[in-house]
C-alpha cells in the first residue's frame, strides 16, 4: 500500500469505530469495546508499516497528500497529510500507547453502564489526535486542535451527573478556548504575512519556503500568538489551571489525553513548525521562560498534593514545562525525545494509579493507601519503575531524555539550568513521597477490604509500558527523529549532577516519609508557604474572581443598560404611539385570521401603487 493511503487509513479507522459504535453498539459493552480497540489497532499497524517504509531512508523521507476542502479565488484550504519521521514518531506514541490504554479501559470501565459511550468518545479522541499529528496546514491543524479539545471536554465530563466532573470539563474547554483565541489570530496573521511575495498559504511546506521573506518583527508577534495555543493545550502557566481539575475524568483518559498525547500536542506543534520559530530569538526566549516557570511552579504544587492523580497531573505539567523550555532553547529534538519517554512512563504511572484506584474502590487519597507494593505486586513494581524513570535514574528512559534537556540548558542558559535542576530535585522528592506513603511498608492489617491485584487486561498494558519505559533510552529515538542532528555526547558532568540530585530528592523524601507518618509533616514544616501552595498560588481564586465578579457584573450591567435605554426609551416610546393608534384601529378586528392576511396583502399592494404613481 502507498504510504499516503496508510496515513489516511490510520486517521479514519478510529473515526469509523466511533461512528459504528454510535450508530449500532450503544447498548453492547462487548461489541463497542472490541470495535474501538480494533479501530486503534488498525491505526497502530498502519503506523508501524509507515515506520518500516520510512525507517533508515536517507535523506529522511517526507511525503504529502492533500485533497481540497475549500477552494476558490484567493483561498485554499486543504485536508492533507504530511508524513515525516517526526510525525511517525508521534503517531507511534499516540496509537501505541493508545492501544495499550484502550485495552486497559476494557477492564477499568467494565462496571460502568455507559461504557459504549466512553469508547465512542475515546475513538473520537484518537481520530482527532491523529489528525493533529498528520495535518499539513494550520487550518486543518486548528480544526483537529479544537476537536481534541472537544473530546477532552466530553471525557473529563464523562460522569456528567457529578457536578465537579461536569464543571471540570467546562473549565478545560473554556481555558483552551481562551488560548485558541490567540492561536487563531496568530494563524490568520501568519497567513496574511505569508503573501509577501506570492500566494498566501496555510500549508507548512509553503510557509517554510516563504518564511525568510517575512518581516521578523511581525513574525515574532505571529509566533507568540501561535504559542498561545500551546500554552492552553499543553497547560503552561498561566493557563495551567485546567489540567489538575481534568483528573475528574476516568483514569485511562487522564493517562491517554492528559499525560501522554493531547497535552503533548503543544510541544509537537512547536517541533513541527519549528521552521517558523527558528529565526525568532525573541519569541523563543519567551517560550523558554514560560516553560521553565511552569516546570518549577507545577513541581512545587505537586509537593503538597494528596490526591494520587493530581500529584501525577502536576508532575505532567512540570515535565511539559521542561519540554517547552527545551524547544525554547532551540532544541526541538530534546523536547520531542523527552515527550516520547514521558509518554511511556507517565502513561504507565497513570495506569498504575488507575489500577490502585480500581482496587481501592475509587479511593484517591494517598494517605488512605498503605503498603500497596505487597498487595499489588505487578502494579506496584511497574509503578516503581515509572517513578524511577520520571526521577531520571540511570538507565531508565527518563534519564536519557531529561539529561539531554539539562545539558542543553547547561550550555545555553545558566539560570534555566538551575531552574531545571531544582525542578528535578522537587520531582524526585514528591514522587518519593508518593512512593513511600502509598506503596512502601506494611499493608494496614486492620483493613477489612484489602486491595487485590487487577485483572490481566489491566496489568498486561502496564507491563508493555514498563518495557518501553526501561528500553526507551536505547531505541535511538533522537537519531530517528533528527538524523542530520549533531548529538551532544552524554555530558558526564551534567549526568552526574542530575543523578545526584535525583537520588538526593528520593533520600530527603525517605527521611520524611520512610516511616510512614500518619499525616503529612510538611503541613507544619512549611508553615505559611504550605497554605499558599495548597491554594495553588491562588490562580483559581483570581480567575474565579474575574469570571464571577468582573465579567458577570459587566454582562449584567450590559443587560441592565439594555433594559433601561434600548427597551424602555427606544421601544416603549414607540409602543406608546402604536398603542394609541392601535386602539382606534381595534374596531377593524374581526377575529378571522384569513381576513387579516388578506387585508394586509391587499393593503401593501394598494400602498405600493399609490407610492409608485406619486413618484
Amino acid at each position, binding site marked *: 500500500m502507498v504510504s499516503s493511503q496508510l496515513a489516511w487509513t490510520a486517521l479514519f479507522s478510529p473515526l469509523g469505530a466511533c461512528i459504528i459504535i454510535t450508530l449500532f453498539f450503544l447498548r453492547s459493552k462487548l461489541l463497542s469495546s472490541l470495535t474501538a480497540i480494533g479501530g486503534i489497532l488498525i491505526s497502530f499497524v498502519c503506523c508501524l508499516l509507515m515506520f518500516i517504509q520510512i525507517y533508515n531512508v536517507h535523506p529522511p523521507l517526507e511525503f504529502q497528500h492533500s485533497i481540497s476542502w475549500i477552494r476558490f479565488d484567493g483561498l485554499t484550504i486543504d485536508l492533507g497529510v504530511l508524513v515525516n519521521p517526526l510525525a511517525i514518531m508521534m503517531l507511534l506514541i499516540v496509537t501505541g500507547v493508545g492501544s495499550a490504554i484502550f485495552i486497559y479501559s476494557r477492564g477499568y470501565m467494565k462496571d460502568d453502564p455507559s461504557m459504549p459511550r466512553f469508547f465512542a468518545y475515546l475513538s473520537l479522541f484518537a481520530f482527532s489526535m491523529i489528525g493533529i499529528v498528520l495535518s499539513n496546514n494550520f487550518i486543518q491543524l486548528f*480544526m483537529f486542535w479544537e476537536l481534541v479539545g472537544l473530546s477532552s471536554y466530553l471525557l473529563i*465530563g464523562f460522569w456528567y451527573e457529578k457536578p465537579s466532573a461536569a464543571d471540570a470539563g467546562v473549565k478545560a474547554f*473554556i481555558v483552551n*478556548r481562551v488560548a485558541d483565541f490567540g492561536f487563531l489570530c496568530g494563524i*490568520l496573521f501568519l497567513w496574511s504575512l505569508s503573501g509577501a511575495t506570492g500566494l498566501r498559504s496555510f500549508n507548512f511546506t509553503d510557509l517554510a519556503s516563504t518564511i525568510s521573506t517575512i518581516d521578523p518583527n511581525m513574525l515574532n508577534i505571529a509566533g507568540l500568538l501561535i504559542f498561545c495555543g500551546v500554552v492552553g493545550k499543553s497547560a503552561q502557566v498561566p493557563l495551567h489551571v485546567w489540567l489538575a481539575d481534568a483528573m475528574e475524568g476516568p483514569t485511562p483518559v487522564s493517562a491517554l489525553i492528559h499525560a501522554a498525547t493531547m497535552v503533548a500536542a503543544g510541544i509537537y506543534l512547536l517541533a513541527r513548525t519549528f521552521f517558523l520559530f527558528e529565526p525568532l530569538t525573541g519569541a523563543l526566549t519567551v517560550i523558554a521562560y514560560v516553560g521553565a516557570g511552569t516546570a518549577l511552579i507545577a513541581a512545587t504544587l505537586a509537593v503538597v498534593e494528596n490526591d494520587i492523580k493530581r500529584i501525577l497531573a502536576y508532575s505532567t505539567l512540570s515535565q511539559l514545562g521542561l519540554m517547552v523550555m527545551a524547544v525554547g532553547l532551540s532544541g526541538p529534538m530534546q523536547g520531542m525525545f523527552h515527550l516520547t519517554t514521558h509518554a511511556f512512563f507517565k502513561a504507565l504511572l497513570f495506569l498504575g494509579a488507575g489500577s490502585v484506584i480500581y482496587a481501592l474502590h475509587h479511593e484517591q487519597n494517598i494517605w488512605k493507601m498503605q503498603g500497596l507494593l505487597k498487595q499489588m505486586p505487578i502494579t506496584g513494581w511497574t509503578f516503581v519503575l515509572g517513578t524511577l524513570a520520571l526521577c531520571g535514574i540511570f538507565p531508565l528512559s527518563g534519564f536519557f531524555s531529561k539529561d539531554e534537556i539539562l545539558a542543553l540548558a547547561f550550555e545555553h542558559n545558566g539560570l534555566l539550568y538551575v531552574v531545571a535542576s531544582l525542578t528535578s530535585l522537587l520531582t524526585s522528592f514528591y514522587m518519593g513521597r508518593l512512593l513511600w506513603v502509598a506503596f512502601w511498608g506494611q499493608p494496614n492489617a486492620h483493613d477489612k477490604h484489602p486491595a487485590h491485584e487487577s485483572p490481566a487486561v489491566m496489568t498486561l498494558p502496564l507491563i508493555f509500558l514498563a518495557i518501553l519505559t526501561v528500553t526507551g533510552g536505547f531505541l535511538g529515538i533522537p537519531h530517528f527523529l533528527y538524523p542530520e542532528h549533531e548529538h551532544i555526547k552524554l555530558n558526564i558532568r551534567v549526568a552526574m549532577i542530575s543523578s545526584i540530585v535525583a537520588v538526593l530528592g528520593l533520600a530527603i523524601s525517605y527521611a520524611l516519609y520512610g516511616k510512614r507518618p500518619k499525616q503529612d509533616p510538611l503541613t507544619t514544616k512549611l508553615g505559611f508557604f504550605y497554605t499558599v501552595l495548597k491554594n495553588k498560588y491562588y490562580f483559581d481564586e483570581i480567575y474565579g474572581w474575574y469570571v464571577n465578579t468582573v465579567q458577570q457584573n459587566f454582562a449584567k450591567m450590559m*443587560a441592565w443598560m439594555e433594559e433601561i435605554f434600548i427597551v424602555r426609551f427606544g421601544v416603549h416610546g414607540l*409602543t406608546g404611539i402604536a398603542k394609541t393608534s392601535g386602539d382606534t384601529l381595534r374596531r377593524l378586528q374581526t377575529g378571522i*385570521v384569513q381576513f*387579516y392576511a388578506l387585508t394586509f396583502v391587499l393593503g*401593501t399592494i394598494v400602498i405600493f401603487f399609490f407610492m409608485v404613481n406619486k413618484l
Partner: protein
Amino acid sequence: MPAVALIAITLVSKEKSNLIRQIANTGIFLSLLLSGYVFVNYNHVQGGFQFVEQIPWVIPFGISYHLGIDGINSVLVLLLGISSFAATLVSKNIKDRVKEYYILLLLIVLGTYGAFLSVDIFFFYFFHEIAAVPTFLMMSLWGSGRKDYGAMKLMLYLTAGASIALVGLIALYCHVGLNSFNLIEIQQYLATNPLPVHVQYWIFPLIVLGFGITLTLWPFYTWAPVGYATAPTAVSMLHAGVLKKLGAYAILRFAILLMPQAAAVWMPVVAILAILNILYCGLIALVQRDIKYLLGYSSCSHMGYVLLGLACINVIGLNGVVALMFAHGILASLGFALIGFVSDQTQTRNLDELGGIAKRMPFIATCFSMMALASAGVPGFANFVGEIMVLIGSWDAYRWQTVLAVLGIVLGAVYMLKTIRLGFQGPMNAKWAKLSDAQTITEKLPFVLLLAALIAVGCWPSFILRNIDSGIKPLSQQIQKSLNQP
C-alpha cells in the same frame, strides 16, 4: 415550482386536523424534495440564473412574476426546505385551531420561498411581506408568556424596517429609470451606468438599515429575543432560521451589489456595528436564565458574523456569509426545536429549574449538546466553516474588528457550555424523574435531519460552496470592477 404546490395545499386543507396535518407534512416534504432537486441540479459550472419562470404582471411598471435560481439562493432554498420540514414536524403538539395554524405556517413558508426565488424586486418585497404577516398572528394566537408584547414589538420593528427598505427600493427603482423591477436587467444596466455616487450614498443606508432590522443589526435587535421567546416553536424556528436571512440576502442582492461605491463607504460602519452585535449580545446571552432568550441573543450575536462578512465585500467573506446563513439557519431551527421539545415536557425553560435532565432524555441532550457545540464554533459543524471564512475574509479589511470577532467565539463557548452544564448535566432534579425522551422516528426525524445537514456541510463544505461560489464570483468580479472605475 414549490410555491405553486403550497398554494394548492393551503386552499385544499379543511376540516379534519389529522388530514390537515398530513397534507401539510406532505406538501412541505414535497417542496423539500423540490428544493433538493433544484439544489442538486443547479449547474454550478454554468452559473447565472437557471430554472427561470417569468409571467409579466403589471407591464407599465415592469413588474413580473419572475422566479429563478442562482448559486446563492439555491443554497438558501435548500435551507428553507430543510427547516420548514422540521418545523412542520415539530408542530404536531398544536391542538388548538389546527387548520388556521397550518394555513398560516404554510403561508410563511410560501412567502419565504417566493422571496428567495424572486428575481423581481417587487415580488421579493411582496413575498417578504406575505411571510412576515402570519408570524405576528401566530405569535399572538399560539405563543406563550408575554406574547402580545412580543408580537407587537416584533411587528413594529419589522414593519418599520420594511417601510424604510421599501422607500429605499422605490428610490432605487426611480433613479435607475429603467422602468423595470427585473433584478437582472437592473444589474446589467448598473454595471455599465452606475448610479451617481451621491444618490448611492443615501439609498444604500436606507436599504441596509431597513433590512438590517430584520437581520437584528445592533441596536435594532431587541425585538428578536423576546419575539422568539414568546413565539410558538415552529415560528421561532422559521423566523430565526430562515426569515432573518432574507435581510442579509436583500442587503447582499440589492445594496452591496447594486451600489458598490456606497458599500465601500458605509461598510466600515456596519463592521463596527457587527462587532457590537457579536460582543454585546454575547455578553447579554451570558446572563440569561431562560434558554429561549439565550438562544435569541446568541442568534443576534451570530448575525454579527454575517454582517462582518457582508462588510468585507470580497469573495471569501461573501462566500462565508452565505455559508454561515445556511449554517446558522439550520442551527437556529435545531436550537428552537430542541428547547421547544424540552419545554413541552417540563413546562419551563429556566436554567435554574432544569438540571440533570440528560439522564432522562439522552437523545435530546445529545442533540442539544451538539447544537451548542456547533454554535460555539466547533469544527465539524457547518458554522465553523462559515465563521472561519468570514474571519479570513475580514482579516485584511478590518484587523481589529476581526480580533474582537474571534473573542466572540470564546464568549459563545462560555454561554453555550454553561447552558449544557446547568440544563442537562449535574445531579437530576427529582421532579424530572418522569420525563420521556424522543421515542418514535417522527419525533426524532426533525432533529436528526437538521443535525445531519450541519455535519454534512461542516465536513464537506464544497457541497454548498461550489454553488455559492458560482453565484458570488461573478458578482464580486462586477463589484471589484465598478470599485476600480474612477
